[in-house]
């Protein structure tokens, strides 16, 4: 079989998810042995045209030009996979979706008229069909590798659709919310990060976004019982995945 041709694309983002690919230091040469990197601007100035077997897309759509570019990428890609919270949910920059753009531009730029952006930061799926998503802010290296290995083997990638709590328990971490009263988004957040926050005694801050069917209302009730006020509860959901419906709706309930 020919090596699958891989492309990596960037939209509004911090580059961290692409970097996670380069951070697979131990596996990088194996990856390069198994796939053909046809387009990965951050890593290579060799640029090949499509079609591509898999396109990994990082970043959210925030400009009119990008909203057009993503269609061209979709058309050139057999499989389009979003990587990270920006591409999947609009990213931290989707925080501005609830605010007037003008105010924001003014807060940052002395000559706001020169800034041309769309009103909202939107995920890739709001523009084109997405075949798979890797969550996280940033994505997990293990999940990236698993996705590539699974794609090569023709296997369904093991991207569990369970809550962070499951990772907590498999890792043997005592629940920070129960044992400590620390607010935690774990019960409504998809697993996959590797149980990072609770393991250091910190509440999950939701960087993998909502788990399927997240019952945020019930969690908020618990957060409220822990003494968090509405502003603080809303802030918890308004993070890297504030653009995900389950989180944005729940945050809005607390405004």
């Amino acid at each position, binding site marked *: 079989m020919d090596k699958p041709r891989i492309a990596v694309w*960037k*939209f*509004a*983002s*911090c*580059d*961290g*998810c*692409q*970097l*996670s690919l*380069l*951070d697979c*230091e*131990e596996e*990088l*040469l194996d990856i*390069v042995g198994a796939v053909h*990197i046809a387009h990965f*601007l*951050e*890593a*290579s*100035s*060799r*640029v090949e045209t499509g079609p591509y077997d898999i396109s990994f897309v990082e970043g959210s759509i*925030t*400009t009119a030009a*990008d909203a057009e570019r993503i269609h061209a990428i979709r058309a050139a890609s057999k499989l389009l996979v979003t990587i990270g919270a920006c591409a999947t949910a609009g*990213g*931290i*920059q989707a*925080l*501005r979706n609830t*605010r007037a753009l003008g*105010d*924001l*531009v*003014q*807060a*940052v*730029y*002395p*000559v706001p008229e*020169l*800034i041309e*952006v769309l009103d909202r*930061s939107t995920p890739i799926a709001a523009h084109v069909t997405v075949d798979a998503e890797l969550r996280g*802010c*940033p994505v997990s290296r293990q999940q990236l590798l698993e996705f590539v290995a699974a794609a090569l083997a023709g296997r369904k990638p093991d991207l569990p659709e369970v809550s962070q709590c499951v990772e907590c328990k498999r890792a043997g971490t005592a629940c920070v919310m129960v044992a400590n009263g620390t607010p935690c988004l774990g019960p409504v957040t998809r697993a996959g990060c590797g149980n*990072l*926050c609770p393991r*250091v*005694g*910190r509440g999950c*801050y939701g960087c993998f976004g909502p788990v399927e069917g997240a019952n945020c209302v019930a969690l908020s009730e618990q957060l409220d019982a822990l003494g968090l006020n509405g502003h*603080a509860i809303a*802030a918890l959901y308004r*993070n*890297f995945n504030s653009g995900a419906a389950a989180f944005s709706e729940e945050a809005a309930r607390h405004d």
Partner: protein
Amino acid sequence: MTERKITVNALARVEGEGALNVRIRGGEVEIVEFRIFEPPRFFEGLLQGRDATEAPDITSRICGICPVAYITSASQAVEQAWGVEITPEIAALRRLMYCGEWIQSHVLHAAMLHAPDFLGLHDVIAISEVDPELVTTALRLKKLGNDLMEVIGGRAVHPINTRVGGFFKAPDSAEIVALLPELEWGIAAAREMALRFARFDFPEDACDYIFVALVHPEHYPIETGRIATSTGLDIAVDAFHAHFMEEQVARSMALHGRMRNGSAYLVGPLARYALNRARLSDTAKQTAKDCGLNEVECNPFKSILVRMVEVQYACEEALRLARAYVPPDPPSVPLTPRAGTGQGCSEAPRGICHHRYEIDEAGQIVTATIVPPTSQNQPQIEADLERVIRASLALDDAALQWRCEQVIRNYDPCISCATHFLKLSVERG
């Protein structure tokens, strides 16, 4: 006179998106515009109304390549506003983690993104075909940096174990001790790599830069210090905005940093080295010398060497800190929010990263001003380009384009930081 035009739509091997316009007419460089058009993400606006304790995690998302820089500067700014002193143990752990970021980021840039320029190759994969050992060493070194960040920060990109006032949980001594052998290896490996890169063919170039960097009486500056310039300025971090400013340029999404008197300046490895060489370790100094670096190095193409010297230093420093590691207990100092303004500044791998927050009595951010390294360097990048193009007019279009890209990559520009795909269009007559 005819115009010469060279257009490169996407500059690769940089973090973010930008473009370059150059027009040359009759042997004269008419226009040099380094444009950053990475869509703006309005971090400073988004921070308004957020709890100041959230600033490190939010600003970390400005850049996935140097999150520790953002986390550190943001934490320091809030700590200053709230009058919090971190303990020496916490400070040491921060510096140790920051060493990890320097190693990771510098090796990524020097070996994987910049070295291909000197080798006439497109990427690190191409290097691995001609010099596999160089690549395996680079990957191992990079991993060492990531391991440091993971052990301390919990994750290499956007660490989670950091907080205003310190850390959530202090790593076990055993985990830190486990890094010692690799750090020892890293020192030698970084030196070898520096010497290997010193054999590259460097274009002749020099510039009378205004260097701006942190300075510290004892240490080569990483996570803390005063701000100094090669023109004699030596100020506290708080005075940054009194001497430096940002201006908006129509063609770019990033603000351009300048001295208040309008001159361009340079931050990053060359600047740090110029102002702090004396505080490098003797061994790192020796490597600098063996690489042929001047005491003040003014050839921007040699910044790749300074980076590797800094990698060696970061490994040495990390080794020292790791050997002396005492888990901070408690892992963070308690905080009492209050109204105030605080500033923080640290040396991101690409240069100083300055944060200023105005916080209200509820502990919420009223205004935020973040000055990342790449926007500060932007005017200087344009100046470098103009100078280099003028000296390289004999080159054909392809070679000139390559050279221009290389000039930009000398800066390891993190366009995401500056707000960001580089488009290069060179027009010449």
